[in-house]
């Protein structure tokens, strides 16, 4: 198996095991999502290998090759507006109290922005933690991990929620070995049947052939 797949699985595993319920992680680039699906703490992180570069070396036409990996860590959040509904709907609340509470209404795009900032922060802290320098793998599998970019997109009103997406670009290096043709491994095949043998009254003789 190529090492980029090993690193990919390790990155997903590190993020997935450190979520502590603050977000969800999926290890592939999913199709479109319902805005309700990524609301508040259901915010989602999608990790996938975007591309890899193989710097060509004159002295290394054969054998292991350096592989510079680029992973996209995509973020999706959605949010509703927030306001102190308890104060507004309190029996006996005066107009002044209601107006004051209403003035404190936080727009959904602001709430989504806060959720995304928090998600970026959490993810960065996990992937750049010194303990995750090797993503929990053996020494020498990968090196030079780095977050090269953090990007936020425009907030989009989708239905009666606001969604916001963003992206973190994570790079690292590994080495790919060429193991050669794996060929076809012939599995053992067993064919069971019974034949009518004179003297075998209960016909339980089993003949097995293996190929």
């Amino acid at each position, binding site marked *: 198996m190529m090492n980029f797949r090993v690193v990919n699985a390790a990155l997903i595993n590190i993020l997935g095991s450190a979520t502590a319920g603050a977000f969800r992680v999926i290890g592939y680039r999913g199709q479109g999502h319902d805005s309700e699906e990524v609301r508040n703490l259901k915010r989602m992180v999608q990790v996938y290998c975007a591309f890899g570069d193989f710097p060509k070396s004159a002295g290394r036409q054969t054998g292991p090759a350096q592989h510079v990996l680029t992973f996209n860590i995509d973020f999706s959040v959605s949010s*509703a507006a*927030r*306001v102190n509904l308890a104060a507004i709907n309190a029996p006996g609340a*005066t*107009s002044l109290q209601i*107006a*004051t509470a209403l*003035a404190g209404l936080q727009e959904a795009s602001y709430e989504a922005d806060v959720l995304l900032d928090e998600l970026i922060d959490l993810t960065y802290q996990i992937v750049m933690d010194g303990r995750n320098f090797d993503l929990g793998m053996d020494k020498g599998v990968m090196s030079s991990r780095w977050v090269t970019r953090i990007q936020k997109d425009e907030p989009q009103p989708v239905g009666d929620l606001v969604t916001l997406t963003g992206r973190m670009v994570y790079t690292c290096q590994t080495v790919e070995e060429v193991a050669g043709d794996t060929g076809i491994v012939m599995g053992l095949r067993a064919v069971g049947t019974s034949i009518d043998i004179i003297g075998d009254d209960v016909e339980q003789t089993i003949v097995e052939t293996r190929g």
Partner: protein
Amino acid sequence: MINLRERIEHDLGVSLEGRWGLPVGLLDPDGSRQEVSGQIVYDIVRMNPETGEEMLANASVVVLRRSSLARIPVAGEKWLIDIPETPCLTASKIQYAMSPTRPPEGGRSIGFIRIYLQQVEQL
């Protein structure tokens, strides 16, 4: 004899507030409440930009007769609007905020105002 625009405005009393109207509660930025009747659309058809397929999005829109309102909502103001959870007179009410990302539509000549709603949660 009234002119055409007056006629249209008069007809809103039937088309928006008549037997098909649903109760709509408005809470203005000054904290004053008003109950009116209007039309509510709970879902809109949108195009999925990734696939080009049509999809139904939960996006409630309220259409009200301007002349029935004590105060007209203006873009940028913070309003709460409660509507029945389903298009049924006896359904429980659910509160929304007037969307800050999509300003109200309509005008004085046409006589109605269309307000886009956004879900709201406890702060």
